């Protein structure tokens, strides 16, 4: 575990760069997290996706399936990989401030 500066505040992240205190998440944190994922510009679609993941997580305590992302955010699977090169699990979920997904990912 290490403390890093994200969005102008000190946030604890795990060895994969996922933030440990979900409550500290805000838009500025997300923008900086996105940069660690090689996403320089968070466009409208990025925000829609990230906010959706975040709300889903707050409601159900688990990351949404990629099916839900595509359907509810009206995105093609390919687009998600274009927006977040590391994919929905390691890319989009990280920017949305979720803990690292469990299992073989």
């Amino acid at each position, binding site marked *: 575990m290490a403390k890093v500066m994200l969005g102008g505040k000190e946030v604890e992240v795990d060895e994969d760069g996922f933030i440990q205190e979900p409550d500290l998440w805000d838009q500025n944190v997300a923008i900086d997290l996105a940069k660690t994922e090689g996403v320089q510009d968070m466009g409208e679609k990025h925000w829609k996706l990230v906010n959706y993941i975040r709300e889903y997580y707050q409601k159900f305590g688990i990351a949404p399936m990629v099916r839900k992302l595509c359907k509810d955010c009206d995105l093609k699977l390919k687009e998600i990989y274009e927006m977040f090169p590391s994919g929905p699990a390691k890319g989009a979920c990280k920017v949305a401030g979720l803990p690292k997904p469990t*299992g073989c*990912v």
Partner: protein
Amino acid sequence: MIEKSINIEDVLSLPLDPKEQKKAVEEKVPCVAEGRLKVYDPNTNNVKKFLELLQSRLNRSVVGSMTACVHCGMCSEVCHYVLARPHDPTMVPAYKGDQIRRIFKKHFDWTGRIIPWWVHAGSPKNDEDMNRLKNIVFGTCTGCRRCTLNCPMGVDTAILVRLTRGLLTELGIVPEGVFVVSKDQWETGNQMGVTEDEYLETLEWMSEEVGEEIGDPTFKIHVDKEDCDFMYTINPREVKYDPRSIGHAAKIFYAAGESWTMPRWGWDMTNFGLFSGDDKLGAFVAKNLYEAAKKLRAKRIVISECGHGYRSTRWEGYNWAKYSQDISSESVLVTLIRYISQGRIKVDPSKNSLPVTFHDSCNIARSGDLTEEPRWILKRVCTDFREMFPNRADNFCCTGGGGALSMVEYKPLRMEVAKIKAQQLIDTGAKQVCTICHNCVDGLGDLIRHYKLDMQVVQVLDLVANALVVPEKKEEK
């Protein structure tokens, strides 16, 4: 690729963090409440329990590996942990094995009684010692078995590592990630906690996507269809995060005119029991799958691209589940070879023109003897295939094996020792590295990002689907 070497003491002294275990107890998660999955109890004599369990697990192959090591050092020449950190004696496979061997010698072997100082016989004194053992067996070895093949005495260090992991799992002295994934697999039958509705919805979605692509809106991935030629089983990662591979497989099976189905339950061919050393979990997961195939009267089980899933489902699972191997199983690669050699599908290698190399997954090549099949296919679906050296059973681990991806606390060490793999990848000059394991996809992906390599990870199904010539309709790409 010069990196600061980490202090190994920081890894070996990582504390036990049973937060998720406590949560599971509070929430009365059935597998924990019923004792199938153990949680850490600081008020019990864990050392005594550990020794009793060890005694009950001793069998011929374990005792052979406990007694045969002569400390010749051959294992140190092949382990990527040692090669990357030659200054660190704790990286040597013989050292890792010795941590359990010394306990065996102290309590169960005559050498420990007569010449304990000579064989370094010793016993863990308290939970702290066992926590250190946890960090050694979970954090400093991916169980890749490269040392096993290089041992002149036939010592299988990975067996000792898995045995020790299993004993610690029985005491709840495990990394958080291992506990959480085991819990999910016990509770939902798959390691990512995918519900049945989500699974079925994703299959429907992929059916629509494939149907659109091949111009057949009636196309459907059948679920629980009886008497098919095979039952297709997958890694939950495919459903949860990246179902493109399901679509690719479905498209190829369609083109080959295959009669196939996926089961409603028993579709997860991965098995965390292999990684945690928990044979009971191994038996539960494997049996779900075998029973599903039996119920559906499938002629065979086809296993999608996954290293430990292949090993667990095709080899180890029958022993864990004490299940007779009535229905044969095969890797999807064998299925693909059948299609190509019988002319059931046509492929155009010019669709894949980037230079591609192949990474043999440990559990498939070294522990599964499937080495020529992927090369046979790659040479037919790509124009520029380049061998990686060493390869086949001698290949290096992706560095994410043995469940390492789910144990994030050990990632800095994992990335440091990945420099061996990174160099191996660079030397191929390839732009794509193909593997037949979802775990390797992420293991390689992590190190490619870490070492900033100009390389992309692909799988055999991706390349075959891309090269597939669908006769009725012109190719989409």
